[in-house]
């Protein structure tokens, strides 16, 4: 899919192994499980919370630019559909930099907006 997915917590890679081996829900996991023992990376993204990482999701473009950031507190899980929507939108916009994906955009083929003078004050009609 052209994307490296890396999960990150302050656990060691040994604990990642044990958890993935034990937990049935993780049996099909394909992504790398990263260890941020001292929270160095979490601190850079502002999600280090007293020894734990907040539930932060970040999408980094191939050129290194941070395109998306979402942070939930410790007690709120993420919705993978929304994460995927944003990922697909970013891929699309990477190819069509002059367009914008509105909130209801879900996938290739859905209506996009192309900002310009004719749209000012007429977004409703677009």
């Amino acid at each position, binding site marked *: 899919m*052209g*994307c*490296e*997915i*890396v*999960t*990150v*917590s*302050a*656990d060691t*890679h*040994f*604990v*990642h*192994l*044990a*958890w*993935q081996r034990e*937990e049935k829900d*993780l049996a099909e*996991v*394909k*992504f*790398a*499980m*990263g*260890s*941020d023992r001292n929270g*160095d*990376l*979490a*601190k*850079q*993204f*502002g*999600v280090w*919370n007293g020894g*734990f*990482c*907040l*539930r*932060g*999701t*970040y*999408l*980094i*473009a*191939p*050129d*290194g*630019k*941070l395109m*998306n*950031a979402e942070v939930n507190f*410790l007690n709120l*899980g*993420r919705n993978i559909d929304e994460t995927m929507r944003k*990922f697909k939108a*970013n*891929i699309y916009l990477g190819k069509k930099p002059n367009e914008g994906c509105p909130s209801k955009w879900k996938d290739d083929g859905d209506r996009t907006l192309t900002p310009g003078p004719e749209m000012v004050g007429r977004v409703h009609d677009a």
Partner: protein
Amino acid sequence: MTESTTLQVGQTVPDFSLTTYEPTTKGFGEFKLSEAQKNGKWTMLFFYPADYTFV
């Protein structure tokens, strides 16, 4: 690291690497951002509080 250095959307993420567990090979490895970039790949970082908790 102070608040003012927290990365913002639109900024370039400095290169970093993480020691990883790779479920596909059941072995340990390393993820390096610059390697993903070299391969033209996007990177999704998914932080969570701790193993053995819900995601």
